[in-house]
């Protein structure tokens, strides 16, 4: 074979043949400039995060110079506007925990059930019709959900149909509606996770004589677990951060919530209500907003990072 090689390896150092086309690139200034613009746009997201941290941290630190962190985190009385001030954030945290818990109680079973139906049972045509309708539910603005809680869920559904004694404002009504709001989030992400499970696993299970329910419960759900958990965790993140529903329907009185029929102020609800008032920039009241905002940011950040890790792990599996 080597007889056919015309140029010995050493010939690499010879200059190009006469008349050889130039391979040198033209300068492309526009290309360079545009690439830098694109890069800057991507880097902006980091600037936003830094901006968030700075705008929260500044006033929050001023707040913590006046109120010890430990008092803030462990105090059970929240009264920033009264003469007898108290800055224990636990009432807000318990209200948030309750609304989130109730929302999950609604959204996880119904969302997951809808996802299982769409991913494992529905014929393609049915799925193409039902899934978009389900997604429409996610398009309803939260302020309208809040109004719905106030005008229908509390008076008609809870008091009227179910006979539960709730006032105009209650943690229960807000939590329930929040749950309805999160159903599409959980359903959509879990369904993605289930459809990503390889068909071979289902066929393997069916070949062993399992019916569809057994296959779903014993094969598909475990295989899609990290994706489903990620969906639930993202649902938690949305519930913690949801503002308008609780601002409208949960009430404004900050108290330790022990019973969901009580009214209560969540972290976001407090921020929304407080923002309506006229608090002077730099005042303790104003800084209080940002201290609660910082706590909210840290909480959701932790939850989000867990979800992102889970999604990443799931993507690696399949």
């Amino acid at each position, binding site marked *: *074979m080597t*007889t*056919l*090689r*015309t*140029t010995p*390896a050493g*010939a*690499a150092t*010879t*200059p*190009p*043949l*006469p*008349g*050889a*086309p*130039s*391979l*040198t*690139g*033209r300068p492309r200034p526009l290309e360079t400039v545009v690439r830098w613009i694109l890069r800057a746009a991507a880097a902006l997201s980091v600037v936003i995060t830094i901006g968030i941290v700075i705008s929260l941290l500044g006033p929050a630190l001023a707040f913590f110079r006046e109120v010890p962190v430990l008092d803030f985190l462990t105090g059970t009385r929240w009264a920033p506007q009264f003469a007898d001030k108290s800055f224990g954030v636990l009432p807000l945290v318990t209200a948030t925990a309750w609304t989130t818990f109730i929302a999950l109680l609604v959204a996880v079973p119904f969302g997951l059930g809808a996802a299982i139906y769409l991913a494992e049972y529905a014929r393609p045509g049915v799925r193409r019709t039902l899934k978009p309708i389900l997604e429409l539910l996610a398009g309803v603005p939260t302020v309208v959900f809040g109004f719905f809680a106030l005008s229908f869920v509390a008076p008609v559904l809870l008091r009227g149909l179910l006979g539960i004694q709730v006032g105009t404002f209650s943690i229960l009504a807000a939590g329930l509606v929040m749950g309805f709001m999160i159903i599409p989030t959980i359903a959509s992400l879990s369904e993605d996770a289930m459809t990503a499970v390889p068909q071979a696993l289902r066929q393997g299970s069916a070949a062993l004589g399992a019916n569809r329910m057994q296959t779903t419960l014993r094969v598909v759900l475990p295989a899609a677990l990290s994706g489903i958990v990620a969906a639930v965790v993202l649902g938690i993140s949305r519930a913690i951060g949801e503002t308008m529903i609780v601002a409208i329907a949960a009430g404004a009185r900050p108290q330790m919530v022990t019973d969901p029929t009580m009214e209560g102020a969540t972290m976001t609800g407090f921020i929304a209500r407080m923002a309506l008032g006229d608090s002077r920039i730099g005042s303790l009241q104003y800084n209080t907003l940002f201290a609660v905002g910082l706590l909210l940011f840290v909480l959701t950040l932790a939850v989000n990072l867990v979800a992102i890790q889970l999604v990443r792990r799931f993507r690696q599996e399949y």
Partner: protein
Amino acid sequence: MNPTDRTLEPSVKEAPAHAAPTTAPSARWREERVTKDAPTPVLECVDVDVRYGGFVAVRDVSLPFGHNEITALIGPSGCGKSTILRSLNRMNDLVDGARVDGKVQYWGQDIYGPGVDPIEVRRRIGMVFQKPNPFPKSIYDNVAYGPRVTGMDVDSMDDLVEQTLRRAALWDEVKDKLKQSAYGLSGGQQQRLCIARTIAVEPDVILMDEPCSALDPIATLRIEELMVELRDRYTIVIVTHNMQQAARIADRTAFFTADVDETSGDRTGVLVEFDLTSKIFENPSDSRTEDYITGRFG
């Protein structure tokens, strides 16, 4: 031979295959056309290794690609023939972690040398892919795309599109629907459109990566005829799984195989033999080539 000379002088010697394009090319004209002499290399690999990450995909390949010849790269799957093909116009640059050592000489200059712009390289060394990949645009715009993006000095784009489509033997089939989407064409027509798109930018070399593997036999035959016609103007390198295809159209053939590392199980492609196609298929000098050709392996 100088590429600008060639473009100024488009009328080329009439090859027998060109005179009778409908008959399948036979081994005879090939013997008449190609001398036993070494090819004048337009493009040449010199001691080329290709790595992906730490893994060596192809090792130590030296191969000249003769001017206005069709060179076929054959061999079993995983022998690195497509990898070598993609290193010839720096398409490997687009793969994460790919690295090419050694030299790929184009008219005597290393395309991996300093100051070489891969975009210029690809403009002169075109590529046709395994699956037809027309752009989601009209047939006309598919052909005009290359001249437009490379800023070619074109008097009349309409004329250029027509000429190019004629050269790709597609004009008669599409002349009435130039403004329609390329996706309406059959698979074979799409692939010929991709070839037309490639020759519209006047490259020197056309690399073809199993261009017929997604096509039916009749469409395959038409592409083969087209390649034989195009050989008069272009240097063609084709990777193929189909040995008959190599035997039908290639002037020279390179046979690759994979060396399997005993301990790690890694497969590394190596060049076994390169010669006139007739020699490879009728009288190979390496027993591995013979085993592959006769179907004892691969």
